[in-house]
């Protein structure tokens, strides 16, 4: 069953794109293989998996031209994601939307286009799988069906990547997935001069929960804490389980003050209500270390180490509290 139309929920769409944590990742063979197959089967010179970010289209894979992104305003695929069916442009020079587009008037001289929206299970169009020709062309129904099939394969690859980055117990990202996302956020923040912060939190006396009430109770505690965190986070924030009972939150475009305020809300939320662990109400708390991305931090390891240091200050300070800093300031 089709989800309700979310073509006008741009914030939700961008948040969904962030959850896939794929922007600015390295080329991957499965996606490259599919764009090559599209090019071969449809006989077009250019094929791409295009993902539409806030102000750009970024290519997870592209064959036929050597470019990794363009501005969103000249992107054909940004039009394709406004709908839930294929978009075909038989001759761009005859289409008022595209006739003066620099990709039509100049290199790579696009004349015809077929784009299939890449729709997530929850109904957001992340981007499009597209076939591009430099000649006018009408794609027939059987070719559109082939493209739709390839788009389904692309989407399944995206889903597979996301499952591999998800912790089965809590639904948070795995440590590896979270670290990779944090690496990209560091690069992005340095490139654009934007703020970013992380919060690390560790469940207090978690070993005692496991020892006294058993591992199922411990698992329930971790699940509930992850859910309480998710409920309090923005769609763009990324929650990861980076250790047994340790979580990390990546906060793009958030300064130290904003991160500290959020951490305090998380702390209060976790402590406010007991966790139902198989009928046993358990009071749990967590300790927090908050670290903004200062000038001296260049790697995720350094960022986590700084936040971990603050976390252990919070532990030493009596637990169920927050400690924050901006390194280098």
């Amino acid at each position, binding site marked *: 069953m089709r989800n309700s139309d979310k073509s006008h929920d741009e914030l939700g769409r961008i948040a969904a794109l962030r959850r896939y944590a794929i922007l600015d990742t390295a080329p991957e063979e499965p996606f490259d*293989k599919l764009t090559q197959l599209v090019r071969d089967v449809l006989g077009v010179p250019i094929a791409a998996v295009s993902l539409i970010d806030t102000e750009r289209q970024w290519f997870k894979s592209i064959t036929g031209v050597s470019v990794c992104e363009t501005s969103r305003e000249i992107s054909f695929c940004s039009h394709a994601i406004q709908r839930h069916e294929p978009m075909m442009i038989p001759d761009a020079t005859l289409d008022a939307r595209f006739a003066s587009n620099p990709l039509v008037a100049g290199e790579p001289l696009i004349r015809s286009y077929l784009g299939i929206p890449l729709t997530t299970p929850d109904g957001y169009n992340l981007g499009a799988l597209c076939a591009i020709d430099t000649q006018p062309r009408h794609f027939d129904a059987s070719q559109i069906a*082939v493209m739709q099939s390839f788009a*389904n394969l692309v989407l*399944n*690859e995206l889903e*597979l990547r996301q*499952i*591999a980055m998800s912790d089965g117990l809590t639904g948070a990202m795995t440590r*590896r997935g979270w670290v990779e996302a944090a690496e990209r956020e560091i690069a992005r923040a340095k490139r654009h001069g934007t703020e970013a912060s992380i919060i690390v939190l560790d469940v207090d006396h978690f070993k005692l929960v496991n020892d006294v009430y058993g591992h199922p109770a411990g698992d329930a505690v971790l699940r509930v804490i992850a859910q309480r965190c998710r409920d309090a986070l923005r769609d763009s924030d990324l929650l990861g389980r980076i250790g*047994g009972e340790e979580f990390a939150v990546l906060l793009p475009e958030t300064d130290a003050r904003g991160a500290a305020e959020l951490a305090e809300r998380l702390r209060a939320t976790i402590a406010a209500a007991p966790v139902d662990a198989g009928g046993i109400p358990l009071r749990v708390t967590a300790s927090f270390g908050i670290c903004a991305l200062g000038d001296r931090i260049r790697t995720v390891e350094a960022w986590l180490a700084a936040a971990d240091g603050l976390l252990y200050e919070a532990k030493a300070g009596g637990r169920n509290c927050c400690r924050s800093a901006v390194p280098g300031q």
Partner: protein
Amino acid sequence: MTETYSQEVVAAAMQPLAEFDVPPALQASIERHGQALLTLAVSLARAGLPEPEIRTIVDQACASYRDELIAAILALREHDEE
């Protein structure tokens, strides 16, 4: 080409996946992939591609997924062991 032939092509391409010890979290992905490959094989046939070419395309599409699946299985195992 019949749909039965498409099913045979997809079953042959997917056969190596049956040997993997797949975590439950990935089972649905494999089922979706099989369904997507079947739709692809049928649509290629309707587009008039010859059978050997369809088999090659389905094999290639499945091979790249297989590599990614192995990486996903290893990533999940690594995380579970941490």
